[in-house]
C-alpha cells in the first residue's frame, strides 16, 4: 500500500475488515505497528520525504460492506449502502476525494511484480487472465484450506489434485465458485481452465475465489435456497429488485423444498432471477440469482422432481422425506426410539424390533443419525397429486 500510495501521491490509507475476523484484526495491528517501527509507514518513509499513514477500520459485519462504494460509506462512519457509479471511487471516493480501492490480495501481488517484473508475472496464467489467485477450498473435500494457484488451473485439478478428492468415497456433484452468489458448476464442466471469462460463460463468477464442493448428498434446490437465504439476509435493502426480489425468490425456493412448488414456479424464478440480475444496483443483487440460475441450468430435473413428484432425489429436503426401519437390519437396540424428539418410534409387539409411525414423524432424521446398524432407511418416495389434495390449496395462494 505504501508503494501504491507513493506512486499515486496519497498520504492516507485504510484497511477495512470485519469485526468478526478478530485474529486477522489483531495480526494487522501488529504488522502495522512493526511497519511504523521500521519506518515503512508514517513520516518521511525511507528518507524519501514521503508520508503515509494506515488505519484499520472495523466493519460491523455486513457482507455488502465489501462492495466498494458501501465500504467507503462505512469507513466514513455512515450507513454502508452502495451508491451508483459513476462517480467511480477514483473520481469521488472517500469524503468526496479521489480514492483507490483494492483487495488485499491485489496489493499482495504488487511486491513480486516489482521484484520480478511484469513479463514474469504475465508468463503465469492464461491468455486473458494473468497471474495467480488464492482459492479457498471448502465443503465436501478432503483437503480444505487456502491454495494459491495459477489462473488456468482446471477445476478438476483443484478438486481432485490439490483438494484430494471427495471424502468417504462419495460422488462429486457440483462446485460453487466465487462466494455465496457464485454459480454452481456440474461434473461435465470440471475440465475448464479457471479464468474470469470461462467462469462467466458457465454462469458463475471468480468473486472471492471460494470453492464449495458438493457431493451426491447435496440437493441442488436446497443449495439454491440456502444461498438465496444468505443474499436475502445480506441485501442492504436500497433497491427493490434485490430487497424484494431475493425475498420472493427465497419464498418460491422454500415452498419448492417443502413440496409445495407449483408448475409455474420455475418460470417465475427465471423471470425474477433475470430481473434481479439486470436491475439491481450493486454486485450483490446482480449476482444473487447465480446459484438459482445455474442450478436451474444444470439440475433442472431436481427442481422438476420436487415440484411434480414431490420428491427430493438427494434426500435432503425434510418435508419430502420418509423414514422407515428395516425390520431385518434392526437389532432392537432402541437408540432410535430414545433419539426421536416426538416419541413416534415404538417396539413391534412381541418382537425385539422397532417401527416408526409415519403419520406423526416430523422427518428430523435423528433416528437415521443415531442408528448404528443402518436400519433406519431414509427415502424420498414422492407423492402423487391425488394423495395430497391439500397441496393444491396450500400452494395456490390467493390469486391476485
Amino acid at each position, binding site marked *: 500500500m505504501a508503494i501504491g500510495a507513493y506512486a499515486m501521491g496519497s498520504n492516507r490509507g485504510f484497511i477495512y475488515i470485519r469485526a468478526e475476523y478478530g485474529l486477522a484484526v489483531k495480526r494487522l495491528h501488529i504488522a502495522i505497528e512493526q511497519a511504523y517501527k521500521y519506518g515503512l509507514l508514517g513520516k518521511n518513509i525511507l528518507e524519501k520525504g514521503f508520508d503515509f499513514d494506515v488505519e484499520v477500520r472495523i466493519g460491523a459485519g455486513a457482507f455488502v460492506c465489501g462492495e466498494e462504494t458501501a465500504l467507503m460509506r462505512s469507513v466514513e462512519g455512515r450507513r454502508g449502502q452502495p451508491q*451508483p457509479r459513476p462517480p467511480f471511487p477514483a473520481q469521488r471516493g472517500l469524503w468526496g476525494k479521489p480514492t483507490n480501492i483494492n483487495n488485499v490480495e491485489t496489493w499482495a501481488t504488487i511486491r513480486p511484480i516489482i521484484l520480478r517484473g511484469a513479463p514474469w508475472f504475465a508468463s503465469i496464467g492464461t491468455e486473458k487472465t494473468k497471474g495467480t489467485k488464492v482459492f479457498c477450498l471448502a465443503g465436501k473435500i478432503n483437503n480444505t484450506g487456502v491454495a494459491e494457484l495459477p489462473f488456468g488451473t482446471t477445476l478438476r485439478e483443484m478438486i481432485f489434485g490439490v483438494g484430494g478428492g471427495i471424502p468417504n468415497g462419495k460422488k462429486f456433484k457440483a462446485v460453487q465458485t466465487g462466494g455465496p452468489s457464485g454459480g454452481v458448476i456440474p461434473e461435465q464442466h470440471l475440465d475448464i481452465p479457471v479464468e474470469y471469462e470461462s467462469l462467466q460463460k458457465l454462469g458463475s463468477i471468480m468473486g472471492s475465489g471460494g470453492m464449495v464442493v458438493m457431493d451426491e448428498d447435496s440437493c441442488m434446490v436446497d443449495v439454491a435456497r440456502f444461498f438465496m437465504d444468505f443474499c*436475502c439476509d445480506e441485501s442492504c435493502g436500497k433497491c*427493490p*429488485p434485490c430487497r*424484494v426480489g431475493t425475498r*420472493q425468490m427465497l419464498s418460491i425456493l422454500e415452498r419448492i423444498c417443502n413440496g409445495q412448488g407449483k408448475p409455474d414456479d420455475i418460470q417465475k424464478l427465471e423471470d425474477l432471477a433475470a430481473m434481479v440480475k439486470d*436491475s439491481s444496483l450493486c454486485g450483490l443483487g446482480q449476482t444473487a440469482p447465480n446459484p438459482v440460475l445455474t442450478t436451474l441450468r444444470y439440475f433442472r430435473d431436481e427442481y422438476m422432481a420436487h415440484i411434480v413428484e414431490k420428491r427430493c432425489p438427494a434426500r435432503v429436503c425434510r418435508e419430502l422425506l420418509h423414514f422407515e426401519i428395516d425390520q431385518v437390519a434392526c437389532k432392537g437396540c432402541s437408540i432410535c426410539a430414545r433419539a426421536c424428539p416426538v416419541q413416534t418410534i415404538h417396539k413391534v409387539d412381541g418382537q425385539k424390533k422397532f417401527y416408526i409411525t409415519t403419520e406423526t414423524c416430523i422427518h428430523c432424521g435423528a433416528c437415521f443419525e443415531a442408528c448404528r446398524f443402518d436400519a433406519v432407511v431414509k427415502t424420498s418416495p414422492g407423492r402423487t397429486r391425488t394423495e395430497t389434495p391439500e397441496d393444491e390449496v396450500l400452494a395456490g395462494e390467493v390469486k391476485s
Partner: protein
Amino acid sequence: MIAGKEISLTIDGKPCKGALGQTILQVAGDNGIEIPTLCYLKNLSPWGGCRMCIVEVQGSPKVVPACSTPATDGSTVITNSERLQGLRRLTLELLFSERNHFCPICPMNKGDCDLQQQAYGFGIDSIRYPYLYPALLVDVSGKYFGLDHNRCILCTRCVRTCDEIEGVHTLDIGNRGVKNQIVVDLNVMFGASTTCTSCGACVAACPTGALFDKSAAFHGPLSRCQQVRTTCTECPVGCGLVVYTKDNRIVDVFGDAESTVSRGHLCRRGRYETWVEPRPRILRPMVRRDGHLVPTSWGDAVHTVKTLISASNHGQNAMLVSPRVTNETMRTLQKIGLRFDHIGMFVADKESALCTSPEFSTDAMKRLDDADGMILLGAQPSREQGVVAAKIRVAVRKRGVKLVILNSRRSDLDAYADISAPIVTLERKFWNRVGEVLGNVKRPVLIYGAAAMTAVGVTILDRLTKVLTSQCNGGEMLAPIQLPTSTNSLALAAGGVEPVEDISTWLGVQPVNFLYVVASDEPDGGARLLKEPHVRAFLEQIDCVVVQASYESALTDVARVVLPSAIWCEKNGSVTNFEGRALPLRAALAPSGEAREDNIVLETVFA
C-alpha cells in the same frame, strides 16, 4: 471536463442537446422525453435506489439509472425498450408485493400517490408474487402528520429532504434488506423526536401514502382541490405557499416550488400552524351593550364607531396596527392618517430599533446559499424564521460553513455553531477566537435581529462588521442582513408608520381618549398589547376602544366595538419581505362569517 459545455446525444432516436454535468434524466426531461422515476426528487442528491429510471446506453451491457448517470457527448440512450418496461413493471410488482398497498383505504388514494400513478401507467391490476405484508407500525404520534410504514417504499426522499433541505437529519433507514424501515432519531416515535422541527418537508417529499398530513388525510385527492399560490405572512421571510381548498375549507398547505424566496420549503408555522391550530375566530361585528358584546350588523357597527370618533373629537385619537397588515392596508392608513393624532404599529420586543433604520437586504436568501461564513446576532430563526434556520443548518452541515452565534437565548442552532456566546461585553480572547474561526472566510454573512438592539449588542454589531471587513481575505463584505421578527414591519416603517414597543408610554404621552386597534390576524388576537397590567386598566378607563381582529382574545374584552378581520388565506394584496420583495397575497378562501379584509374595513369606517 468543463461543466456546462454543450453536448449532443441521441435519446430514443431523437437528437438531444444538453450540458456537460447534467444527468441523462435531466437532458431527457429538457428535451421532452419522460423517464419514470420514484426515488428522484429535484433539488435532492440522486439516490439511484428505486431502479425505475433505468435506461440502456449503447455500448454498455448493464442498464444504468438515468437519475444519477451523467449524460455523455455522442452517446445513444434508449429509455423505453420492451426490456426496460418489463424490468420497471416487475420492480413495481415487487414494491406492491412488499407491503400493504390496498389503495382504497390509503390517504393518498386516487391521484396523489406516485406509486399508484406508475402502476396505472403500466396497466398493473394484479401481481404475480405473493404479498409479504409484514404488519408494521402506523405512527400517528406526531402532532401534524403520520408515518404509515406499511405504505413506505423506502425511496428515502424523506430522509434526504430532512437532511439536505431542513438540515436536521431526523430520519434515516434502519435494519437491512426487507427489514428496512424509516427510523426517527434513534428509533423513537415521531411524537417523541427531539430533532424534528415539524417543517413537514418530508411529508411533501413522500411519493406514497407513507407520510401524510393528518388534517388532509381522506379528504380526497389534491388534484380535485382549488389551488391558490400566496405568501406566508407569519414572518418577514415571506415564503411562497400553495393553498389547496375544497368547499371553502383548507385541505392542505404546501411550499411553492416556484417561490424565489423559499423554493418550496416552509417551516412549521407556515406549513401547519396557521390552519391546523385551533384559534377561535371573530365572525361577526359586535358592539358592547349593557357591558356585553352583542353581534350586530356591519352597518350598525360602523355607525357606532363613527359616533365614537365624533364624540371623542375634543381629545386625542390614536390608532395601533399590527405589523402584519398588507401594503394595501398601509396605503389606506396613509390616506386616513390625518384623522388620527398618532398612528403606530405594535412591533416585537426591541424591534422598534430595527425599524428606525429599516434596511431591506436584497437577495439575502441567495447570499445565505453562497456564504462560507455566517454570524448570527440577536436573532432566533429556528423559533421565528424557520426557513432561514434551515439554510443555516444546511450551510454548516453540507458546505462546512463557519458559524458564530451571539444570542440572548440558547437555541438548537448553537449545536451547529463553531462559537456560540451570550450578548454581553466580550473579552479579547473571544474576539481572537472569532478571528481564528472566520480567518479564511471569503463570503461572510452577518445576520442580526431585534435582540441585537441593546447597547452591548450594537457595539458587538459594529465590532463584528469591522472584524469581517478586515478579515474576509479580499472577499467582499456585504451589508449585514437585518432579520426582523414581525412580518411587514420594515415596509410599514419605511412607509412612515411609527414603531411602538412600549404601549403604556406611547399612550401615556397625551391623554388619548379614542383608540382604534387593527390587530388583523395576529395569532394572539393582539392580546400582547395588554402585557402590562396598567395598559389594560388604561384601556378599560377610556372605554372607547375599537378592535379590528380575526381571533378572540383578552383585547376584545376591553373593546367597545369589535370588527372581524380576514385572515392570511382570505387576504389579497401584498407584503414586503426582509429582502424588499413585494410578495403577492391571493385569497384562497372567502372570508369566514362576516369578516372583511383590513383595508376594506378601514375604508368603510373612515369613508
